[in-house]
Each structure stands twice: as C-alpha cells, then as structure tokens.
C-alpha cells in the first residue's frame, strides 16, 4: 500500500529538484501529446526549448525576445510574490501595468515636443506612481471596508482596459496619426524611448529594473525585518499579530509595491518594445506574471528562472506554430501542463511517499 506521510520539515532537496523534474516530465508528457497529434515529438520539444536560443536561422531574432518577454514578467512577478507570501492576493497586476504605462506616457507626451534628459526619468517615476495609485484602490478598500482584494483588483483590470481604449482613441491619440487610434510612437522619439541597451540582447531598462527588483526582493525577504514580517504573516497571521506586525500597513505595502513594479513594467514596455499606447497594449503580462510568481515558488531567484523559462516557452511555442504547424491551443495545453505538474509535484516537498506493508487481517 502507498502511504503519504507528512515530513516534519520541508525537504530541501525536493524544493530545488521539483522544478527540474517538472520540466523534464512536461517534456515527456508534452512529447506524447505532440506525438498523438502526429508531430515528431523530439522535433517539437527541440523547437520549443532549443531553437529559440541556438538555431542558426532564428536565434538572431528570437534570442533578444527572451529578455524582452521575461523582463516585464519578472518585474511584475517579484511585486506580486511579496503580497502572495503574505496572503494578499493581487490579481490585478494587468490593470496596474496598463495604468503605469498610461501615466508615464501621458507625462512624456504632454511635454512633447520638449526634449530634455530628465523627461524619461520623470516618466519612469510617473509610471511607478500610476501603478501604485491603481493598486491603492483595492488596498484602501480592503483596509477600510474589509473588501476582498482579489475581486476588486481583478475588476479594476477591466476598468483600466477601458481607460486604455479611451486614451488610445482620445486624449493620447497621435495628432499627426491621420486619425488612426494609438499615441505617438515613443520608441521613435529618442528622449522618450526605452532603447535596447546592448544590441542583440533585447536588454532594455525594464530588464535592468527586473534584475534590480530580484536583488532587492531577495535582500528584503532574507535580511530585513519587513520581509520577515511578510513571510510571518503568510505563514501564520495570528503569530504575526502577536509579533506586532501592523497588518493594514502590510497590505498597503504589498499591494503598493506590486502596483509600482507593474506600473514600471508597463512604462518600460510602452516606451520600448510596444512603442505606443494602443487599444491592445495589454498583452496579458500581468496575468502571466501570477504563473511566474508561483512557478518560481515566490522566491526571487526562482522567479528569475521561471520568468526566463516561461518566456522561452512563449517564444518557442510561437516558433513551433510557425515551423511545425502546431496549433496554438496545443502550445497552451503544454504551458498549462508545466504549471500543473509543478504544483502537483509540490507534494513531495512537504510529504514523503512510502510503501508500507500492512497485513490485511
């Protein structure tokens, strides 16, 4: 008989090993899925995981895409992970991302055609504040009226999308754009743009900010009293109150930080890879970052790796659609499998699976 026994302490080995096993298992099961669809499984897996980085023909295009896609995912996921660790569920990073982009772009475009070195830093600050303020809505409603931050933050995503549409069609529309929706293309305006810093890598200021956020979050969680209080609140809210944690302040801090980082991600995206405020600017980074945060076990280093891995499957998935004619639904199933398997394998971190002999008298 197989029995599941709770470990007295989480296994250190499995905490590190499960993501690796989960990826391998996903490759095997995904390969079976692709084989069942009549595709060569080895080719499909190679196209997803290997070709984007090392294929002579495509890597020149797809390799920079890795950091372009991973940057905002990591930046947003770091912010979300602080709240998730404390049991504060901000599901609305997508809205904060959009509002950050709108706030930052508004500042830059309002000053147009003024050209000065301080405009871009000012836009960065405005982007962070935009996301922060948008996140303050669920934070204040939660601390004042005890509303559910999951619902409020999620609903505000749809509000933000409407504001985005209104900006693209109205107050931020390019006056020289012949009536087409969308703002001026900021990536074409040198003092408003967020350029690729090292050619061929895809690294822009958002990637730098993401790496900075990883380091800052690591220090915060491991060395700082506030990080300890965040972890303690997530582990045991009652013990946290006993330890003197001010829980309302913590809600404001976690939601505010997540909002500010999502706002930054939005600003770097709108001034760089996206270039302009457009109706379809929201590409789902705010939602995918939730997956990245959990895939990375809410650990800053884990999130860094998970962001890169997920970005890779996106790029590889697109490549596989294009090269092998795999339907996009199959790619999504494959990505979903990865998350499910990882979460399922969490079991072995906290539990031991043993075979027990028990006579059935």
């Amino acid at each position, binding site marked *: 008989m197989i029995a599941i026994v709770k470990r007295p302490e989480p296994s250190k080995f499995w905490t590190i090993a499960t993501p690796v096993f989960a990826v391998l298992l996903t490759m095997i099961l995904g390969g079976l899925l692709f084989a069942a669809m009549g595709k060569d499984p080895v080719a499909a897996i190679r196209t997803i995981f290997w070709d984007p980085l090392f294929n002579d023909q495509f890597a020149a295009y797809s390799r920079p895409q890795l950091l372009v896609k991973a940057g905002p995912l990591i930046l947003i996921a770091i912010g979300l992970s602080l709240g998730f660790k404390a049991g504060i569920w901000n599901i609305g990073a997508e809205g904060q991302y959009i509002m950050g982009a709108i706030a930052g772009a508004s500042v830059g475009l309002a000053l147009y055609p003024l050209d000065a070195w301080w405009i871009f830093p000012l836009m960065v600050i405005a982007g962070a504040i935009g996301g922060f303020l948008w996140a303050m809505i669920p934070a204040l409603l939660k601390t004042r009226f005890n509303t559910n931050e999951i619902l409020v933050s999620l609903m505000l995503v749809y509000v933000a999308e409407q504001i985005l549409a209104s900006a693209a069609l109205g107050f931020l529309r390019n006056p020289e754009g012949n009536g087409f929706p969308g703002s001026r293309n900021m990536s074409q305006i040198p003092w408003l743009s967020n350029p690729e810093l090292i050619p061929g890598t895809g690294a822009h200021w958002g990637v730098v900010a993401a790496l900075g956020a990883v380091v800052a979050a690591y220090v915060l969680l491991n060395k700082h*009293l*506030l990080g300890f209080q965040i972890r303690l609140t997530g*582990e*045991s809210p009652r*013990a946290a109150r*006993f330890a*003197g944690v001010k829980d309302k302040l913590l809600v404001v801090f976690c939601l505010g930080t997540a909002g500010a980082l999502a706002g930054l991600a939005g600003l770097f995206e709108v001034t760089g890879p996206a270039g302009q405020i457009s109706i379809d600017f929201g590409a789902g980074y705010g939602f995918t970052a939730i997956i990245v945060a959990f895939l990375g076990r809410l650990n800053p280093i884990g999130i860094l790796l998970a962001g890169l891995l997920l970005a890779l499957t996106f790029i590889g998935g697109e490549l596989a659609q294009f090269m092998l004619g795999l339907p996009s639904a199959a790619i999504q199933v494959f990505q979903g499998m990865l998350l499910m398997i990882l979460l399922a394998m969490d079991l072995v971190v906290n539990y031991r699976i043993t075979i027990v002999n028990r006579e059935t008298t």
Partner: protein
Amino acid sequence: MTELLKVVGLTREYPGVRANDDVSFSIGTGEVHALLGENGAGKSTLVKMIYGLEKPDAGFMKLRGSSYAPQNPQAARAAGVAMVFQHFSLFEALTVAENVALGMENPPKMSELAQSIREVSENYGLPLDPDRIVGDLSAGERQRVEIIRCLLQDPKLLIMDEPTSVLTPQEVEILFKTLRKLQSEGTSILYISHKLEEIRALCDGATILRLGKVVGICDPKATTAREMAEMMVGQTLHVPTREGGEAGEVLLDVQGLNFVPSNPFGTRLKDVSLRLRAGEVLGIGGVAGNGQDELLSVLSGEAKTGKGSVIFDGQDVSHMGPNARRRIGLLAAPEERLGHAAAPNMSLTENTALTATIRKKLTKSNFLNWKKTEEFAREIIEKFDVRTPGPGSAARSLSGGNLQKFVIGREVLQDPKVLVVNQPTWGVDAAAAAAIRQALLDLAAQGAGLIVISQDLDELMEISDHFAALNEGTLTAPRPAKGLSVEEIGLMMGGAHDMEMAG
C-alpha cells in the same frame, strides 16, 4: 470480579516510533481502570486499537473470553465498547437529540429518542435537555451529550479520554457520581487521565505506560500520587518550591477593563480589574473559553482597550501594540503554540525573531542580525533543555512539550518585568512541566510579576501567591492562594452555573 477485556502483547508501530510495545493488561467487569502516562506514552494508540480505529501489528484482545478484533468503531460499538473522546464531535447548530440521532445506525423517532435521552439523563444524574441547541451548552454539558450518546448503546466498556480537562470541580463531581453509578451496574470504564488525585479518587486499578511499554500496575487507592507520577516519568520529581518573598511595588494595574473581541465567538471581558506586584505570581483559573485568550490579548497588546484601562509601571499602555509593550518590559506567551506563539513552518531561529528583536536588540536599522538571533535561539535551547537537532529545525518538528519550553524560554530569557502566560504546561510531560514552573518561579524570585492563566488547578495552587478565576469574561477579585479550599475555588470558577445537579 470476572474479566471483561484482556489485552495481550499489543504492539503498534508507526514509521520511526513504536507507539505500543507488547502492552498487556486486563479490565474486570464493573472495574474503573485508569490508563496513566505522559503525552506520547502510547495511551491514545492503545485505546484507538481497542475502539477499532487502529489495528495492532502484533498481539490480540479478548472480550468476555472470546476473540475481539474490531475492524472499525462500528464493530467495536456492536461488541459493547463505547468511547467518549477528549474533543467532541457535535454539530453546534443542532439540538442535543438531533446530535445523538446522527451518531446512531438506526435512529428511532425524534420524540422517542428525546424521551430515552431524558430517562438516561435522570437515571445517571446527568442533567440535560434534549431540545436545547448544542451551541448554547457549556463544555460540561456537551460532554454529557457524548456520554449519553454512548450510554444509549448500553455499553459493557466505556472508554473516557481525559474527561475532566474541560470541567469545573463541581462538574467533575457530577461526572464521578455518574461513573460510580455505571460501575455499580456492572459497566467497566477505561479512564485516561494525567490527573493523579482524580484517579486515586475514582479508579480501582491502574496501568501505567511509558514510551509505549507497561511500566507498572498498581492500586491507585493504595499508592500516593507522587509514586504514580514517578512511575510515569521514570524519575524522581523535582517539585518546585515557592520562596514567598515580600511583594514589591505595583507593576501592572488593570481597572474596569471592558473588551469586545472582534471574533464573534470570542468572550467579552467585563469590568476586569487586577493588580500585580513585583515578585508576585497571580494564578488565573477558570474553564477554557471563559475569556482566557481575550485576557492574554489585551495584556500582550494584540488587542487595544479603552484609555487608562491597562497601566504598566505607572504608564498607560492600553493604546500600545505588542512591540511597544515589549520595549518597556511587558511580555506574554499565548496558549496556542503552533500558529500563535510560534509559526509552524519557520525555524526556531526565525521564531526567536518573532518576539525577541526589540529586547535582545537583534536588528540594526531594521535589518535582522540572523547570527545574533541564532545565538539567542541556541541559548534558549540550551538553558531550557529543548530537545531538537538545532535552531534551524522547523517549529512544527518539535514535540509539544519541547516547543512549549522554547516558547516560555524565549520570553523568560528576555528578562521581562511582567510576563503573562496562558497554559504554560498544557500537554507537556511532567518533567518538562516541573522545569517550566521552576523557571517561572525563578523569574518571580528575581522581582518580575507573573500572571499564569491555566486550567490546571494543581499547577496554580503550586505556584501562585494570589488566585483569581475567569467566568464568562468576568474576573473574581484575586485572593491569597494559601488556604483556599477546592470548594471555594470551584465557586470562584462559577461552578454555580451547573450546581442544581440531580442527585
């Protein structure tokens, strides 16, 4: 006395632990037999096997001479074995009769059932109205529901797991009368308890377990409590001695404190007043759920109360949070070890940081000094004899007693002016309990004021100078503990609540 149940060589192993090792004993018809042992001695495993919840790895049982190996509790009940658990399994929103019906395989009509509940309750002196909602009943009354549920099956053997832990002395008396009546009718009772005086008053025989083995069989009426305790722990008990010093200045002054907990199931504190002097130990008794948690929370700072209601060392602290109170020397250790006093999945070092950062100066501009924190954790582990591989172990990996020593040690070693503890030795084995009490008394001898909230009256009598009791959120006026009789204590605890017992 003919033999009812005979247990021979029962052995049950869990991964890494031999919970029961070759346990043998027997119970005669109409005998009240005690099963004694520290926490983790294997009492629960043993009764679970008798009640069909676990199966032995080796050994066998005989009931009235024939082989007895229940596959499940239903089989055990069919054979005439019933059990009253320490934790009740009742639905609060249903009536007494409905709860009883839920536990039956073929419940009769509700009106008939109510009638038979009334009969049993009168016959055995257990006052209980079958139409009342269980949510309105006291812990003692809820236990009666469980007992009556068992008695309706007309059991031959009734197993009772720590039945008096939730009762007032008066309720204990009622329960004992019932048990003696059952005994006189030929029902055998297997009685599990730590409370030695109780066992001496009630039981005819006792089997003592230690580390899963039978270490002694005795006649409790002819053995002293001390001898039994020494058999249980396997060593001579270190009895704490109270050095009654002169009481010093007033450290803590609570006057007319009212508090409405945010939790709707909490108990309101009504007009609580107390005064604690340096070097004094104030024991606060009372049945669980009468405001103990709330009293601790208003003293620790987790809950804030009206201006001027809590004065510490001449300073109004009623608006201060836990850390502000720690800074000036008012510390607390709550009852619930896992999830309140300590975070289960965090290491002992991290759990040290939970309360000690301020007084032990473990932070520098809000960055934690983990090295210094770990050193303090090691000091707690060493001075309080916490058995653990090291400060990196998760709190949940420690046994209850060891974690309790850690929690108490963490506060005591911070050199508090006033320490408030709730159930300091709950679920702790006798040797560790004695060590904890001694540490508390040492602290008081050094001039700290102590408030010890506990449900263990023996403990309170042993260490307190003054005694007060909580009853439905009100605190009786503290009285000198010396010379208080059990009856007086019972009245202070509000036993009057259930005094109109049937004879």
